[in-house]
């Protein structure tokens, strides 16, 4: 009888130890996977922001005659302008827009002459663009009457990726970034 009891106790204690070890390994694996996905997400966030800021938005008004309208749409989730992108020979109409929400999130896209050139990049929340005049006064969106007064804009976006969560099965890994772009051509 004693031997049976000892065997049962040993099995119980051994089982608890094995469960603890597996639990620890599982936690480590989840943390490592989320970390790896966060690194990827940060890279994506940095790359997209860099291309948007330095490759697209820095070209606002580039190659556009002085008397022409540069900015054609300035909404909270959409910014459309004329400009000549690097290596382009002609002026195009560029639109940076966050479209309607889908099951994957809010798609951020960039169009050139109505053709998709970038995206979709998935945002966890809607894109927020705020517009300012030369004195730093914020213009209420959508900017219509004073659209020619826009001199710079502030873009607020939050990229995300599905991570793993032990309790809720999945969680959102996030990377929020706010950047400003002064439209230098509009100052000339």
């Amino acid at each position: 009888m004693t031997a049976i009891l000892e065997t049962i106790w040993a099995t119980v204690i051994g089982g608890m130890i094995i469960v603890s070890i597996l639990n620890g390994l599982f936690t480590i694996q989840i943390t490592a996977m989320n970390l790896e996905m966060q690194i990827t997400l940060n890279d994506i966030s940095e790359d997209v922001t860099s291309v948007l800021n330095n490759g697209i938005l820095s070209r606002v008004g580039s190659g556009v005659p002085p008397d022409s309208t540069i900015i054609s749409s300035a909404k909270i989730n959409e910014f459309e302008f004329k400009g000549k992108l690097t290596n382009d020979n002609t002026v195009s109409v560029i639109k940076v827009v966050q479209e309607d929400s889908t099951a994957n999130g809010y798609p951020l896209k960039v169009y050139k002459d109505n053709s998709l050139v970038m995206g979709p990049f998935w945002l966890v929340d809607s894109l927020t663009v705020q517009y300012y005049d030369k004195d730093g006064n914020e213009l209420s969106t959508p900017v219509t009457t004073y659209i020619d007064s826009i001199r710079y804009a502030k873009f607020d976006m939050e990229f995300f990726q599905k991570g793993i969560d032990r309790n809720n099965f999945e969680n959102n890994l996030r990377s929020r970034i706010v950047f400003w772009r002064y439209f230098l051509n509009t100052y000339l």
Partner: protein
Amino acid sequence: MGTGELIILLFAIILFSTLFITYYNGLIDQADTVYNTNYYLQGMQIIEKFYQEIMVDIITESKEFSQIYSDYSNISDSLSVADKFYHYNITTTYCDSLGNNLGSSSKFQRLDFRVYTVKGNQDTVFIGNQNNPISKIIANTSIN
């Protein structure tokens, strides 16, 4: 099972646990670095904002080169971005084209930026510091 065997078993469990703790601790340290990346990126965007602001002053000729030097000679303030305060400091130094200090007026200025923010756990993240600021050089291109 004797007492000696039991103690050995306990020691084995304790030693094995330390492996887990060490491994997990290393992972958390790495996580801290990874999550700090968001703050670094945001700090760099703030620096870029001020740099663009100065570029506007230059191209619109709203400020002379010497005025940029005096206006940005030692600015310290805070900016709220994404519900978090980023504290920044900007200094200007006359320099040569390579960014070396000259001590006197020249055609080049080095703008040194330092930004820091306090995270939720009260740790401070520095984006550029006193000894290693984020530097940008501007040149006086005016004809006169």
